[in-house]
């Protein structure tokens, strides 16, 4: 039996079977060239798969983009047949007896270099296509060797990885995976957020475990204390079976409690809403008793794809979410991309300081070609339910009025088109930059609600990167400076008679609940898996004090 410790970021216990996702670097390094026939066969398979993927993307694009752009994507297929590209890679494999990976990298790199030096901008851009295609083939070569086999996973699988990327987790079968364990990551990592949304246990920052666990090992994951046991003995097994049963009973009680509404002693109704990224999250949220959605992270609609989602595509998703909520509010946050989340097809410049750079509303105001289709989609969906719009990363009044101006122009366009929408749609802003919190009283008169994003507010106030393990001790949303900004924001909202919500991780922090209730926070928006626990905690605290 071996024991490893990390940070428990999603409560729960899992007794199950390990599945180890090998890190990417290891894969290519470990792959030595087989004989040249085998390598050529591998390359052929990866190229065929790439062709199918590109065709699929081109087809989707032709539905959502104009024909010319679809044609450009389609022309990538030619690269996959090109004697100067893939053909050259085959020649290298046969002539030099090297692996398919080495051959593809070599050809793609040299073509990329040649194309980027041509002084014709249009042709220079094709260098990006070449890189794209090269990367795709390499990815498919890697996938073919040790892609994650989601289909044949046993029940109660515990996923072990260095880190989980959105592209790894997109196809996870929730009914089979019962916990995540990663070496990297902190409380706000993708792994943590996903585990909470799934309502399964997760331990992150569990260093050194990867060399000591192999697929098929029996493992215990304790998402409360952050302990991971590999091949546990009988004593630990029976202990954890008992704890896990007790936890499940407790959870069932909380679920029952979640159906009740929370009132403070003074009689004020407190709502518990959900933070969601996908329709699947929303299903979990509704079954856990969410009283609405306080944050719909629309980034997930834009991620893991090679083109921008069209107005129509977005409209369908927002409409579906609004209808599922059946009159309960759906707060849609406009695109928050940049920072740690980038999109390959936007070609955003590399920034030395991405969290202080072109992200979220700044990007949307700069490129209204991204912003407007989303706003139109949200507006159109508002005809089908109770939708509110929320702008992220507002730092000045000028930005807010500019964003509202773009929204008005979208409304005008929909009127011209004769499309229905809620003309009184509520418009609010995230308070996640210290300047917005400090000037909250000036902002309050211009919006219908505030929503405090504690993750960014904390990292900007304390100048501590929340993703950097080395300063994670400084990153503390309960720091008095952060709490003071939160209090100022809530006070300013109430002085202007608008509600104030919180959609950061702090909203689900058991220890923070009493303080936040004391400040008068109106709505707690938490991940779908944390709703029942947050609600039962608030029920206790609200009746006890404030």
């Amino acid at each position, binding site marked *: 039996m071996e024991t490893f410790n990390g940070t428990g970021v999603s409560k729960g216990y899992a007794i199950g079977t390990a599945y180890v996702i090998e890190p990417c670097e290891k894969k290519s390094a470990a792959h030595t060239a087989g004989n040249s026939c085998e390598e050529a066969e591998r390359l052929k398979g990866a190229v065929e798969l790439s062709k199918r993927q590109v065709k699929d993307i081109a087809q989707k694009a032709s539905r959502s983009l104009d024909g*010319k752009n679809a*044609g*450009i994507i*389609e*022309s990538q297929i*030619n*690269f996959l*047949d*090109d*004697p*100067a*590209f893939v*053909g050259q890679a085959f020649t290298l494999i046969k002539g030099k007896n090297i692996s398919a990976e080495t051959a593809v990298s070599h050809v793609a790199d040299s*073509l990329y270099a*040649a*194309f980027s030096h*041509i002084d*014709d901008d*249009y*042709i220079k851009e*094709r260098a990006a*296509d*070449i890189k794209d295609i090269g990367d795709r083939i390499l990815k498919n070569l890697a996938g073919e060797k040790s892609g994650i086999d989601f289909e044949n996973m046993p029940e109660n699988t515990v996923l072990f990885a260095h880190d989980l990327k959105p592209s790894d987790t997109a196809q996870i079968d929730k009914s089979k995976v019962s916990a995540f364990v990663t070496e990297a990551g902190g409380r706000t990592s993708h792994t943590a957020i996903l585990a909470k949304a799934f309502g399964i246990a997760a331990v992150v920052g569990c260093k050194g475990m990867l060399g000591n666990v192999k697929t098929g090992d029996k493992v215990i994951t304790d998402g409360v204390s952050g302990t991971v046991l590999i091949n546990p003995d009988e004593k630990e097994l029976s202990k954890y079976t008992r704890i896990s049963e007790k936890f499940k009973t407790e959870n069932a009680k909380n679920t029952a409690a979640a159906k009740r509404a929370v009132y403070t002693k003074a009689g004020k109704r407190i709502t518990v809403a959900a933070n969601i990224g996908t329709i699947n999250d929303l299903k979990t949220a509704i079954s856990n008793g969410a009283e609405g959605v306080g944050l719909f992270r629309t980034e997930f609609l834009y991620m893991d794809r090679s083109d921008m989602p069209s107005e129509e595509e977005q409209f369908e998703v927002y409409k579906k979410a609004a209808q599922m909520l059946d009159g309960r509010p759906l707060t849609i946050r406009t695109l928050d991309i940049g920072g740690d989340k980038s999109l390959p097809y936007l070609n955003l410049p590399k920034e030395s300081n991405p969290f202080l750079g072109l992200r979220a509303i700044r990007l949307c105001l700069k490129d209204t070609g991204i912003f407007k289709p989303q706003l139109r989609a949200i507006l159109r969906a508002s005809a089908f339910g109770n939708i509110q719009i929320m702008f992220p990363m507002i730092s000045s009044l000028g930005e807010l009025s500019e964003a509202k101006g773009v929204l008005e122009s979208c409304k005008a366009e929909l009127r011209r088109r004769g499309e229905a929408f809620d003309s009184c749609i509520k418009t609010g802003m995230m308070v996640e930059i210290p300047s917005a919190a400090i000037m909250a009283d000036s902002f309050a008169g211009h919006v219908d609600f505030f929503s405090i994003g504690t993750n960014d507010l904390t990292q900007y106030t304390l100048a501590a990167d929340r993703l950097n393990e080395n300063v994670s001790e400084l990153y503390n949303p309960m720091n008095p400076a952060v709490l003071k900004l939160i209090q100022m924001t809530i006070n300013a909202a109430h002085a202007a008679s608008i509600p104030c919500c919180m959609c950061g991780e702090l909203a689900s922090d058991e220890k923070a609940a009493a303080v936040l209730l004391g400040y008068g926070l109106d709505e707690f928006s938490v991940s779908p898996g944390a709703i029942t626990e947050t609600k039962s905690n608030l029920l206790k605290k609200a009746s006890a004090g404030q």
Partner: protein
Amino acid sequence: MTTQTVKILNKVGLHARPASMLVNTAGKFGCDIKIKNSEKSVTAKSMINLLSLRAKMGDTITIEADGSDEKEAVKALTDLINSKFGED
């Protein structure tokens, strides 16, 4: 061998979409096909090579085909270039 010179008439020249159409057409024939622009000569069956010709509107290129279906190939490619690749 069949040879034919053609003037590029479409606005963008031999860029991605036109080059891709050219490659697709050339791929239908069994003969060897070369496209020459000034000094450089490349196979018409490689999009990357075609792009590297950097043929612009007004450039005159030469099509050279060698093989059993060379005449048909040259005609098809000439027609395609003269049709401005369907651009307006």
